[in-house]
């Protein structure tokens, strides 16, 4: 018996009829054709399916689609705006933070969650923040560099927008 679920995805209201047993990730991929969110395991270990629900990083395989009713969901497809890459996307490109690319959307979403809370993270804080997301290609080193790069770039932008004139180029440390 299908349930009607209404949610906002990447800024647009969507309605889907889903079986109650179906996961949010499956509805995003199969019903809404947002295939940038990936499935890498069946035990919530890998984090490839990480999206934002009401602004927080969530492994979308740990949530039933019906639990997303009335929520605001953001996926990798909603990160770039008007053809402009999000600074985290740019950071991954700049620092070679990806190889096969399969874990990348989840990594970018979890990094966005980290930087919203911690604009100037240490390497240890970055490594801790992404430890729920597996990458088998990069050894994580360039992912850490990519998030550091993005953090510096976002702080610069924030400082500039605040008009303080004290933007620190390239990070404070």
């Amino acid at each position, binding site marked *: 018996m299908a349930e009607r679920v209404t949610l906002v995805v990447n800024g647009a209201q969507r309605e889907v009829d889903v079986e109650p047993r179906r996961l949010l990730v499956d509805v995003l991929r199969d019903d809404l054709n947002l295939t940038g969110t990936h499935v890498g395991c069946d*035990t919530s*270990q890998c984090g490839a399916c990480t999206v934002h629900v009401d602004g927080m990083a969530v492994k979308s395989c740990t949530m039933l689609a019906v639990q997303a009713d009335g929520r605001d969901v953001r996926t990798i497809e909603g990160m770039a705006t008007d053809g402009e890459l999000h600074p985290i996307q740019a950071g*991954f490109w700049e620092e070679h933070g990806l190889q*096969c690319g399969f874990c990348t959307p989840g990594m970018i979403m979890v990094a966005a969650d980290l930087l919203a809370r911690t604009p100037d993270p240490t390497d240890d804080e970055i490594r801790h923040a992404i430890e729920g997301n597996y*990458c*088998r*290609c990069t050894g994580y080193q360039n992912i850490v560099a990519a998030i550091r790069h993005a953090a510096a770039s976002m702080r610069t932008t924030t400082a500039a927008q605040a008009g303080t004139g004290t933007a620190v180029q390239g990070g404070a440390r």
Partner: protein
Amino acid sequence: MTADVLGTPMKRVEDPRFITGNGRYLDDLKLPAMAHMAILRSPYAHANIRSIDTSAAKAMPGVLTVITGADVPYNPLPMAWPAGGASGLQNNVNTPRVLATDSVKWTGEGVAAVVAETAAQAVDALDAIVVDWDPLPAVVDAEKATEPGAPQLHENAPNNIVFDWTVGDREGTDKAFADAEVVVRQRLVNQRLIPNPMEVRGDIGWYNPGTDEYTLWFSSQTPHIQRLLVGIFTMGIPEHKLRCISPDVGGAFGTKIYCYPDYALVLFASKALDGRPVKWVESRRENYHSTIHGRDHISYVEIAGTRDGEVTGIRVKTYANLGGRLSTIGPGIPTTLYGRMLSGAYKVPNVFCEVIGVYTNTAFVDAYRGAGRPEATYVVERAMDLFAVEIGMDRAAVRRRNFIPPDAFPYDNPSGLLTAVNGAKVYVDSGNYEPALNKALTMAGYYDEIPRLKEEARQRGKLLGVGLSTYLEICGVAPSKWIGAVGEGWGAAMWESANIKVHLTGKVVVTVGTQPQGQSHETTYTQLVAHELGIPVEDIVIQHSDTQGTPFGYGTYGSRTANVGSGAVIKAAAKIRDKARRYAAHMLEASADDIEIDGASYRVKGSPDKVKTLQEISFALDLAFDTPEGMEPYLDETAYHDTPNCTFPFGTHIAIVEVDEETGEVELVRYIAVDDVGNQINPRVVNGQLHGGIVQGVGQALWERAVYGEDGQLLSGSMLDYAVPRASWLPNLELDQTVTPSPVNPIGVKGVGEAGTIASTAAVANAVNDALAPLGIRHLDMPYTAQTVWKAIQGAKGGVA
């Protein structure tokens, strides 16, 4: 003039689609009217199948068909690389069928398949299939499987032996050991690993009833080879009736080289459904049970030498676990790619190795990143350490003493490891091992800092250990007449291909036979073509992965793309330049010999204003309104390249670990790697490959282990139970390089895809054993989990073990 991008750390051209969620992996593809398949897998490690009742499953909602082994008329899967090169060798071959018919040999072997309207309906219906099982005793340990009384898996393989293979001079080595001042012996276990690419495997099969043609989309490293293996060898369908397409591949590390049963199964199912496309995507649990595993050797290692540090012999007997049935190239890995590399970077006069390939009730084992060479490196690098400790010599000094000297290249291994086959002889191409060692020692503070750090750690209750791995790798597998020789290699050629088309607008489309899985081929090939043709990178696109539209190629594995694939691209570009030069001569009314090429400019010598660009040439020649007698229209050239030799990357890796004496926990404190992979097309890509490779090898040393229970149940059967390395467990790796160009290809590259993994496991293992040495612990097998190390420490202290 376009700036030359070859050798620069250019940003990747692949990335925009991946960072925006626009990658297209197998499971992202949807075809009209597509049905979904699920596979019922054996819950037993060893059992006979009495009967299978599918009637209830067929009546389940949404079910379109249920398939058993009896329904599928195809051959067992092909085996492409039997062990070879030894006289009197038997290969007792048993490969999987598309679905098991009479018996199963491991938990996870496919028994039946359901095709339904949705994936969930297919999985639901699996539960309604009733199999009448006759369970049999199982064996999972390769050494025990060869002992009398062990459960027998196959009638044609007495004592479960696939082959008993030897290499080297048995008598000479025995004599070296009899005469030796020092002999050190150690049993080494190189544990089984689960490769864990982040994207699991999957396929879509489509049969077109209108043309009687098949199309297979799959996550594969080898679309062209699979067109042969699944097509003609398994199903009896020749190349012109089967098209294979590998979309974006989310990591592979060897697991996606092979011919798997599901390829033929989705094609069969599509035909059974009159041409509805059928998709199957494995779960991670299925991946752990039914996609190949790696490593799993038990080795008896002996090293002989003099009291002053000269190694005079290496003698090894290895039991290589190959699983319940053989994967596509399983037997080739622990033989050619392992036994022939056991002397590593050292000039060892006497080497003998016996490898016994064994069937057990476990998943099939095949090439996983490094494939044979990490196992060989682990053996020789642990042996060098054990030898050094035995004679009381510095471990770096022992290595330096025994290195193949820089004036010995091309190096012809005196122990006959790299034998001439079919008139072709493989030799170590180039090397200079000491500078890499010295650089790494300096970075690590090996002589001046480490002793002080050990003392300082001791005061904190920690045991600090340092480990070296001065590895030698063979990669870029070639040449065809060597690797293709009967009894040694694949029985297949090993060349590569490329086609370059310069279209009317001057934009360039390059198609290649290699197949990336994250290695950045689109970027590195773009750099090569930009360099060769003098055009901007924006004007170039690299295409691959579809047998319709790319020239035949052998795919990507064994770090072969830079050595072999680049050669084909360079050759095709040379053909383009040659034709462009001849046409420029026609346009400029000059002799072709008088046309000089400067980037994309073709000008008459001594007349700088008489010039045509490649774009002007392609426009005119592709239209062909005015061509000279005998010249065909269009700038469109294909090249096939068979490289004359393998390449041999090398280097020194140093791991520094701290062991907590109270808890047994091991922390990787620093990791230093100085690699020599020859010239580099893109240093950013090279470093990325090394980072990932090193961490996979570190994972084996410290955390990763596939565990089967005695009954053949996979106890590490999900990501909950198998320790894939996490970001927070690792330090930043410290990388440097030396550059010794390879003479066997025009750009002097050696290859980098596997080097990190080949080197790092041994470096970390040596570091942990060095840390434990003060407690009197001589050797501990991997992985060095806190439990393993704690037990060893307690045992050494005479406590509860």
